């Protein structure tokens, strides 16, 4: 077979089962592609020995006609997932030498189902960022470039390494996490598919915590079907995470190709933000037409508290982060910088170990939780969050099955172009995605068009709690209508 890295995950799975290719061949092809693509800095750790060992085990199983749903499929893992015996840094200096003695639940389920680990993928430090520029291990260069321009672009973030690796064919799929848009925004920027499932669908155990009431793991892949295959393995009950749902996990792949006739799709008027460029509106309009042509009913809805979501998010997420990141104190793991006493040791360690963005968010979180300010900021934000969630509940009560919006307010931007003078400029990237985390709903980003520079643009579908099957069915319709898969030119080879 020619270039096996260009297969989709489902094609590779079928070829492995039919013994047309071996897991070894597939792993080796990806390892060699990774080596040639090091300039992208998508992987922060390549694990070829692991990959070869796991691939050999998969080949032995496949030879006997055995193996799990992902047997022999090479994947990349965001460096926020603890991997037993394999360095896990959250792309922070404070964890630069951390080697977990345990495996996250999500990755352990991928390995249980036969997947092969290629390495650990770059991300914004502690997943705090929208461009992968806060990583202590360096920027990720997007595989995409503007037409006729070789300026390096961001892949989005925080799961920038995951998105870049999947788009550049350096793995067949990857894990990500999404607290405010960290799966959907980079998927949109790189022309691939990413889903943040319902809060509680995947276990958070063993994932480096950012904001625990918002964090959720999910897959990246080049097709909707591939995401459905991966999510089935990643999801499911885990007694080690008390917020993890014990609802049975459906066979999501069966939703692919399911009719969407009669489904009601809500179009929220508040997502038509002032000054929105026509190139963002255009794929949105097309998405409506495509779903209508497939028999869905398009209805206008209102989510009146949308404009407050980002503000409430930038209180709640830093508050939870300041609490979660209190554990990095130089005592039990991670970096230690000596000090004149124990408090000085904590302060020096945390000053040296955390990057600028992480320090800023911890300080804001500390402030909004501090005595005298808790009610004015944190409590108020949690009340606004209730109103945001009620907006969605009202839509579902009107009979809406899913909501269609743009995934991002623009296509990818250049490295260093945004947020250097005012961090809020960067935060506005997540304007269409944060509401979904605030309400704990599932959201998928699917490629749907291109901007004036030829860069990918995505559409977002938001579902009811545990409505992932509807999202897969609907986004498959968009994927089919949008035309051929978006593949970047491999300029780095």
């Amino acid at each position, binding site marked *: 077979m020619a270039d096996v890295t260009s297969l989709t995950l489902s094609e590779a799975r079928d070829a492995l089962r039919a013994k047309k290719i071996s897991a070894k061949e597939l792993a080796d092809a990806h390892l060699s592609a990774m080596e040639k693509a090091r300039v992208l800095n998508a992987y922060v750790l390549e694990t070829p020995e692991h990959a070869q060992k796991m691939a050999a085990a998969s080949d032995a199983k496949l030879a006997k006609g055995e193996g799990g749903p992902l047997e022999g499929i090479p994947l990349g893992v965001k460096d926020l997932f603890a991997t037993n015996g394999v360095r896990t840094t959250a792309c922070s200096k404070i964890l630069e*030498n*951390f*080697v977990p*003695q*345990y495996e996250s639940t999500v990755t352990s389920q991928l390995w249980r189902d036969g997947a092969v680990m290629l390495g650990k993928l770059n991300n914004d430090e502690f997943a705090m960022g929208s461009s992968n520029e806060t990583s202590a291990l360096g920027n990720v260069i997007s595989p995409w470039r503007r037409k006729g321009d070789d300026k390096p672009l961001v892949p989005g973030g925080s799961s920038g390494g995951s998105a870049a690796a999947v788009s550049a064919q350096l793995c067949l799929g990857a894990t990500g996490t999404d607290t405010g848009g960290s799966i959907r925004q980079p998927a949109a920027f790189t022309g691939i598919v990413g889903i943040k499932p319902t*809060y*509680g669908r995947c276990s958070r155990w063993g994932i480096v915590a950012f904001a625990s*009431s918002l964090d959720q793991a999910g897959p990246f892949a080049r097709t909707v079907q591939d995401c459905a295959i991966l999510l089935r393995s990643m999801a499911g009950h885990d*007694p080690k995470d*008390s*917020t993890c*749902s014990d609802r049975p996990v459906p066979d999501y792949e069966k939703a692919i190709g399911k009719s969407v006739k009669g489904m009601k799709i809500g179009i929220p008027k508040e997502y038509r933000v002032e000054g929105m460029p026509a190139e963002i509106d255009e794929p949105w309009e097309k998405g409506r037409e495509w779903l209508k042509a497939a028999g869905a009913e398009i209805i206008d809805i209102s989510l009146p*508290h949308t*404009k*407050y979501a980002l*503000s409430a998010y*930038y*209180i709640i997420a830093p508050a939870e982060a*300041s609490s979660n990141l*209190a554990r990095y*104190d130089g*005592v*039990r*793991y*991670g970096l*230690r910088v*000596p*000090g004149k*006493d*124990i*408090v000085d*040791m904590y*302060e*020096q360690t945390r*000053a040296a170990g*955390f990057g600028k963005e992480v*320090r*800023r968010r*911890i*300080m*804001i979180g*500390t*402030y909004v939780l*501090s005595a005298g300010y808790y009610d*004015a900021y944190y*409590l*108020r*934000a*949690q*009340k*606004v*969050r*209730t109103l945001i*969630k009620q907006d969605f509940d009202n839509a579902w009560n009107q009979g809406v099955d899913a909501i269609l919006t743009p995934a991002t307010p623009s296509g990818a931007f250049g490295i260093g172009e945004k947020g250097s003078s*005012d*961090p*809020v400029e960067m*935060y506005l990237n997540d304007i269409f995605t944060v509401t979904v985390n605030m*309400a704990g709903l599932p959201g998928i980003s699917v490629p749907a068009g291109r901007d004036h520079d030829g860069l990918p643009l995505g559409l977002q579908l938001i579902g009811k*709690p545990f409505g992932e099957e509807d999202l897969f069915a609907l986004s498959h319709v968009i994927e089919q209508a949008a035309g051929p898969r978006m593949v970047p030119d491999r300029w780095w080879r």
Partner: protein
Amino acid sequence: MSVDAATVRRIAHLARIAVADNEIEHLRGEINNMLAFVEQLNEVNVDGVEPTASVEDMKLKMRDDVVSDGDYVKRVLANAPATDDGFFQVPKVVE
């Protein structure tokens, strides 16, 4: 609302992050930008609204109150910057 330099120092200390004198002004600006940005929440009428405690329509599960894990000191200490005889080691604390 906006913060002054003394408040920035107080927050940094509460957060256990050392901040140099020449960083204070810059941090103050960034924090005030953020506070100005979230100011718009004051427009929202939240009278009688319950704060969100959980987005899930699910009761927290109870488990048996028994020891189900542990007894691997070496693994627990494997990443510690300093250990002594099966314990984490820290600078002397006298209070």
